[in-house]
């Protein structure tokens, strides 16, 4: 079967014709069967329009004579029932290879005619022209304005957020969270019933996190994970640390950081809807952490573990086991 030539030679006049008018006023005589392949035109014909030069089918403005010609070429091939799928695909592939300007116009024209299969074809072709290009190249191909600001052009996910206000907000975030935790903690201490010899100060400094016992030592680490890569000589495990006594100095520094922000009217600058959303998030997250606190405290107080390296048993697969040294 020979492939149809894109240079459609006008077929012998074999059947009834319809008249179609494009926006520029010109009227075209077209084979009815071919034109009917376009749903909108078909519909018009069925409504009785187009049978005479005086009552032509009026096409939407985006279909100029050149576009009409292309569209009819498309119809001319596809309206014939006999073509195989492979032939159709092959035709479509060649047909859609045209310069960018024409492709854009054709897509527009097809869309205004609601000619789905052609819109599909041309849209896919446009997508292929976009894929693999940088934004600059895309702009150049399609003559698009370069109207995003430099800030907005930072990595896409950064566009709206590389903003000092947002970072200030994150710090407010952190401060709020700490407040909520402290409040909850004090509440918990009042409620906690188990006997405990430690003073509140001890607990506070403990929770401020300079001691490491809050990590439970997990006994079963997934062996399979470690299998997946290199086996390496032993990492000398970090020596047992002494509990860090800097809790107070740390707290001191944190307070001074926060003081900086007490003076700013941060709230005024943030979009209220965003702020509300973020506040909700802070609270949820704090609540989530708070719900963990009672259990964590139980663990901390009842475990009394020595701070040290994770278990290094001969059966646990740990890539740091000594092979060489």
């Amino acid at each position, binding site marked *: 079967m020979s492939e149809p030539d894109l240079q459609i030679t006008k077929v012998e006049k074999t059947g009834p014709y319809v008249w179609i008018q494009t926006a520029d006023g010109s009227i075209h005589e077209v084979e009815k069967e071919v034109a009917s392949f376009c749903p909108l035109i078909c519909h018009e014909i069925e409504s009785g329009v187009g049978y005479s030069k005086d009552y032509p089918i009026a096409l939407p403005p985006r279909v100029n004579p050149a576009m009409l010609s292309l569209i009819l070429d498309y119809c001319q091939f596809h309206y014939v029932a006999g073509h195989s799928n492979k032939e159709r695909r092959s035709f479509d592939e060649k047909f859609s290879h045209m310069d960018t300007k024409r492709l854009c116009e054709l897509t527009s024209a097809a869309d205004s005619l609601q000619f789905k299969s052609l*819109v599909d074809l041309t849209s896919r072709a446009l997508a292929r022209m976009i894929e693999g290009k940088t934004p600059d190249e895309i702009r150049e191909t399609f003559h698009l304005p370069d109207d995003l600001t430099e800030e907005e052009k930072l990595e896409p996910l950064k566009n709206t957020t590389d903003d000092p206000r947002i970072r200030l907000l994150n710090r407010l975030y952190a401060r709020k969270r700490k407040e909520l935790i402290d409040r909850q903690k004090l509440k918990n201490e009042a409620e906690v019933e188990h006997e405990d010899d430690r003073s509140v100060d001890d607990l506070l400094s403990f929770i401020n996190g300079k001691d490491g016992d809050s990590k439970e030592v997990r006994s079963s680490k997934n062996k399979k994970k470690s299998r997946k890569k290199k086996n390496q000589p032993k990492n000398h495990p970090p020596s047992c640390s002494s509990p860090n006594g800097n809790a107070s100095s740390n707290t001191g520094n944190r307070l001074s950081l926060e003081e900086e922000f007490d003076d700013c009217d941060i709230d005024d600058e943030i979009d209220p809807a965003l702020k509300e959303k973020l506040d909700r998030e802070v609270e949820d997250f704090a609540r989530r952490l708070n719900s963990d606190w009672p259990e964590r405290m139980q663990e901390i107080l009842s475990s009394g573990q020595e701070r040290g390296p994770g278990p290094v048993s001969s059966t646990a697969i740990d890539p740091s086991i000594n092979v060489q040294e």
Partner: protein
Amino acid sequence: MAYSFPEEVLEYVFSFINCDKDRNAVSLVCKSWYEIERWCRRRIFIGNCYAVSPGVMIRRFPEIRSVEIKGKPHFADFNLVPEGWGGYVYPWVIAMSRAYPWLEEIRLKRMVVSDECLELISKSFKNFGVLVMSSCEGFSTDGLASIAANCRNLRELDLRESEVEDLSGHWLSHFPDTCTSLVSLNIACLGSEVSFSALERLVSRCPNLRTLQLNRAVPLEKLPNLLRGAPQLVELGCKKLKGLSGFWDVVPAYLPAIFPVCCGLTSLNLSYATIQSPDISKLISQCQNLQRLWVLDYIEDGGLDILATCCKNLEELRVFPSDPYGVEQNVSLTEQGLVSVSEGCPKLQSVLYFCRRMSNAALVTIAQNRPNLIRFRLCIIEARATDYLTLEPLDTGFGAIVENCRELRRLSLSGLLTDRVFDYIGKHAKKLEMLSIAFAGDGDLGLHHVLSGCESLRKLEIRDSPFGDKALLANAAKLETMRSLWMSSCSVSYGACKLLGQRLPRLNVEVIDERGTPESRPESCPIEKLYIYRTVAGPRFDTPDFIWTMDEEGNTPLGIA
């Protein structure tokens, strides 16, 4: 001659553009494209859960249907990331449960997931269909029961390599009888046995099931039945194909049941199976359409030869060590096996290979055979192993890899390596996106070659190598173009970390040190571990007490809040 892009079909055109890179490019073209793109983005990939906050993602992309999020650094797989590091998915799930009622897919990697999260997922998204949790932890089989029970259109449940608290195998029975939608089920990591009959019934009522990775011993006589109930199967993995040795001699009646399945298999995961070489070889020789094979080194060089002969469509090979800590080699697997596969399998693009010896010559051969390699991860079990033939470093071999394999995107090095290999990498590996370095290099120059030469580098992870401050500080700006940098047991000083934190406000510079605050030691003292990543979310506030985020103003760093 200006003409306009048909804006009215813009959204429709975008529906044909799905890869992240292209979507990102599209969103940067101009204001109107940015706007339209964000409204029709359906799928998002967050490579680092701390790079952006859930709120920002939701605000920009209101119509997401599919989310993929990654948490811990890759070296967590080797126990280099301490417990409690972070990577909690909870804030994401909470935010999405409110904003994305039509969410269909969640894919997580190295994140901490609780049972509460799983329950929330199962109840918040009516069309939820795909849950993949790769190397995750923090949940139990109770959480899985919620998913099974409440997700009416579940298509995929994939627990690959996750650490699951196994309370019972009963959770599988929570799939209602009306569930027929499963396409993929991977429960290989689970310890407790699920009811075989429940599994069988589930498999047989899901006509679209294509992937099945099981955790229990599959008794020989039950395997054919199970497989018969899953005629569309293309991917199979069993922990123990019990009784497989001698299988081929003993019960020919069962073979016809297995062979049709073998022909259809494109992916075979035997990395948990202790079957020996002759049996693996026979199995593989039946699987001529195999594209992906994960196997233990029991396959040996002989088995790999057979693979090279029979499986011409092979694209990915992973060979794991059966006994990585044994001093003596227990199997006859050498560099030859990999060379054979590189010769025989023209489509091979992805390799992960554990072995005990390697030579520059073999690497050069592999590189010349397979210039189409995209991922090459070689793990010679002994650190700093030399070329076993010449006793030289393996610089030349890896140099050949990067020079010949122009499309290489991922590389893991091993063996004895000097700064020269990094020179080669910096010069040639222009498409390299991820590089893993361990016990390699001579000094800062090596790191400098990589940071200054590898234009596409996104992730760099280094352990136990003599890299210090100079290369890092000289290439500080490069760090903002990367997703993340991990360095542990190197020679980076605390002072340098503070400086980086100050100079680069768009990065989080996190010092991990289990010896207590670095403030208590001199600034020139090297820190234990360093994790630097770019972010728009500012310092995170869920850090445990052994992590310090370097502050922008060069103040005492933010510890836990």
